[in-house]
């Protein structure tokens, strides 16, 4: 295992050098010039040459890249060109935790919702539940994240009573349905009826509690985990961005897991478990889920890596000081190459390490791979 990890870490070095070199070349090709960002529309014609000389930006791309690389090996990410004195490392330290939290919360929400729904849809393939959940998934996939974010703001910030009453009505309807089914189901045993009635009480209680404690969400901004305002404020500020991130992933994960699990449920060992009278939940959770989760884990890993650098739209909508905003707004748009270089380096490292970890996780998920080594 240590050898595997060591090999993956060694492979990381050339990958990062190639990525940073490519970034350095690409930033030359995209529009954006930090000197123009500095002088602005009020600048004078002679300002460009003056500032270029003052900041030493008249070097060519190759020597600039090697200067940067040399600094990186000394642990120095350099300074932001458009903000004098601001260290890129400080900006990365400031923004990375924000993006990590939003991405983690989004992924956790997506998996928590997608795994049970996808599993149940596979188990009840072809039923009304499967058709409805599949339709909803396609609907959600088709909503771009910027629109989803704005819709969430519209609903949860400016018309908070709508989702609140929707939750209340749906929860109570569900509770009533449970009660009704308990009352009408003549074939059920008394124990089953009591269980359903108890479930109805729990659902109704939770619904009423949630409706009464319905939180208000901010339109914008982010309260840090370490802030004096507390963890609750942190979660409150991160909730809508995380839901925006999660929405698309939920649909994709659900569809993927449903397909894989449907195939797994045809396997002999599942038939054997059914024949032994195992309850469906146990079959799905303990027997079918693990062999069905390869694609899901791979995709979740890729999606997580993508979210780390790709939440710029969500960050813009909710004014989150994250990595995406840093790289795009402070880096690419203004041609501030130390910001872009530093940001991409961190993202590439994270991405490669994450995918390495996913590779390693396969051997835990499938004993055959472990023994094959």
């Amino acid at each position, binding site marked *: 295992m240590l050898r595997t990890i060591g090999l993956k870490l060694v492979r990381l070095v050339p990958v990062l050098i190639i990525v940073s070199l490519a970034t350095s070349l690409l930033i030359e090709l995209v529009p954006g*010039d930090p000197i123009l960002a500095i002088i602005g529309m009020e600048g*004078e*014609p002679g*300002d460009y040459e003056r500032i270029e000389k003052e900041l030493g930006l008249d070097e060519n791309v190759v020597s600039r890249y090697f200067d940067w690389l040399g600094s990186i090996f000394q642990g120095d990410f350099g300074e932001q060109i458009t*903000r004098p004195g601001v260290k890129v490392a400080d900006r990365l330290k400031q923004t990375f935790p924000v993006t990590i939290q939003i991405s983690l919360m989004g992924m956790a929400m997506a998996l928590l919702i997608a795994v049970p729904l996808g599993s149940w849809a596979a188990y009840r393939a072809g039923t009304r539940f499967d058709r409805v959940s599949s339709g909803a998934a396609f609907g959600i996939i088709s909503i771009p994240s910027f629109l989803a974010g704005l819709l969430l703001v519209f609903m949860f910030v400016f018309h908070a009573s709508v989702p609140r009453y929707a939750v209340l009505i749906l929860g109570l309807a569900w509770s009533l349905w449970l009660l009704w089914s308990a009352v009408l189901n003549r074939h059920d045993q008394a124990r089953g009826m009591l269980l359903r009635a108890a479930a109805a009480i729990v659902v109704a209680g939770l619904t009423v509690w949630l409706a*009464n404690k319905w939180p208000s969400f901010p*339109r914008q901004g982010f309260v840090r985990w370490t802030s004096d305002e507390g963890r609750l404020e942190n979660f409150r500020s991160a909730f809508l961005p995380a839901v925006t991130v999660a929405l698309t992933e939920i649909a994709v994960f659900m569809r993927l897991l449903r397909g894989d699990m449907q195939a797994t449920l045809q396997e002999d060992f599942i038939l054997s478990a059914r024949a032994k009278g195992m309850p469906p939940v146990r079959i799905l959770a303990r027997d079918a889920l693990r062999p069905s989760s390869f694609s899901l884990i791979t995709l979740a890993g890729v999606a997580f890596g993508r979210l780390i650098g790709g939440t710029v739209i969500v960050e813009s909508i909710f004014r989150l000081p994250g990595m995406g905003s840093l790289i795009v707004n402070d880096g690419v748009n203004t041609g501030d190459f130390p910001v872009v270089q530093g940001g991409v380096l961190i993202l590439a490292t994270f991405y490669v390490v994450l995918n390495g970890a996913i590779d390693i996780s396969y051997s835990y998920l499938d004993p055959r791979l472990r023994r094959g080594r």
Partner: protein
Amino acid sequence: MRSWFLKLLALMLAFGLVAAACGNDDDEGVTAGPDEPAPAQADDDAAPAPADDDDGADDDAAPAPADDDDGADDDAAPAPADDDDGGIAAPADSEMMDNCDATVPGSEITMGIFSETAGLDPTVSSGSGTTGMIELATLYDVLVIYDQINKEYVPHLAESFSSNDDLTEWTLTLRPDIAFPDGTPLDTSVVQFTMERFLREGGRNQGRAYVAWIEEFEIIDDLNMVFHLDRPWGTFPYALSDETGMMVNPTVVEAIGNEEFNLNPVNAGLGPYNIERYAPGEEIVVTAKDDYWGGPVCIETVRFIRIPGAPATYEAYKNDEIQVAFLREPRVISEAREDGEGANGHVFLQNAGGVVFVNNGVRGSTPPTTDVRLREAIALSVDPAVMDQRANEGLGKPGASLLSTDSIYWDEELFAPIQPNLERARALVQEVKDETGWDGTIRLACHNAPSRIDWAIAAEALLEAAGFEVEVDNDGTILDLIGIVLVNADFDLACWGFNVSDETPFIPVLQFRSDAGNNRIGYADPNMDAALDKLQVATNNDEIQAALAEIWSVWQQSWPSAIYETIEEFFIWKPHVKGIVGSQASSLLFHDAYLDQG
């Protein structure tokens, strides 16, 4: 029997749950969650009465922006008194308003700013209230402020200022007994140090251009000094009210160095607040000083954040996440006014803020627009109403005049707008075509912001109606446009703005002087130079108005560019926020701000 009992029990439970859900619902209101802050006053929900002049949509009214433009003006600053030398002295009752006995613990306001400053060093910030000046003023204060009620500059950190007859020497007297938090006194050496930094540090702030006009700082004593200028300047106090007038503590700057000073200037200013947190891309937080020279600072914390886009900024304002907002988009300003927000706020006008910038032959270039007939044709074909309809849904302030009808210098006869005249424009274009063989092609550079794309479509249509063949280039960003215009001078026409503010019309129009360093279009007209000379030595509003009228008259002879709108910069704040004062260049001052808990 058992089955019936269970059914009855289930139905009773269901009934009870529904009743419980409904019964508890009215206690906390629909949208108020447990964490929602309590409203500051009982009648917050009531929409404030709309302002009856410049905040209204009625352009026919001739508004005087000073009349009722902000809540702060209710706390009217005392009128300045002339001192014995004919200069401007601080009011006899020189103390500022005491709206509280001490800082109110826990009091806080958040302001949504327009764009972020590049740093907290006044030489680094690019200037004006749109970019950093408001935040910096809370830290450093200024020598002079622009009194928006009386429309003149009045001393602030300064005690008085006056000039000699030919306006080349300005004498400044500082208030005594003002010191930085570390005890360093405010004296004339601090003023000199502060201003010379703009030249010494290379500086990104445009103030370096007019600090360079100061030939000599003559220090008379600790509190008196004379600025010897290399040219007469009637509104020199502007330089004392801008970033160049923000006093920095030499002891702190020298101790921590320029870079750290730009990021964390603790105790480095004389303003009512000290820096608490500066997180680029996130927020600037300042906290009240307990020993501010002007008396108690009522609001403990002021937070500055930037929310991308005016719609999102206004949404955050409506959601009470910010209490002060800076709006610069006509559609959102219009919405805010319809919501009645104009009653608490202030409008800064950027006259000639929307301009079709015309290359008159800058740096040896030879665009077709070096021909004055084509420049006139452009000005006559650009219909402000059409441009406004297309770019702003008709909600902007269109007008082809140097000044807006809301300007304090406005006079219908002196500043009569240019009337679109397509017939004459066509005739002029045809005349040039016939005479020179030019094929009518003209390049129009703009950028890819959605409103500018609409703008370019309208401009292209209007110009083509006059006989031009327009080649639009609006693929790039605003930075690309800056490169095209300022660096490469590779344009015929461009979307741009002059931003002639009422507080200081001289600085922006200075670019039309033939030898100006910031002459970006290559315009040169001796008559304009003469008119600018008059504006340069104008010392009061009547003289400024007369000089501007002459500039506008010359403009209509040589047509340097085509003006089509005034830009409004609209600040709004919640009704319970009081005492905010507007100064110059779209800046606000918070030293007298307080929260009305009544």
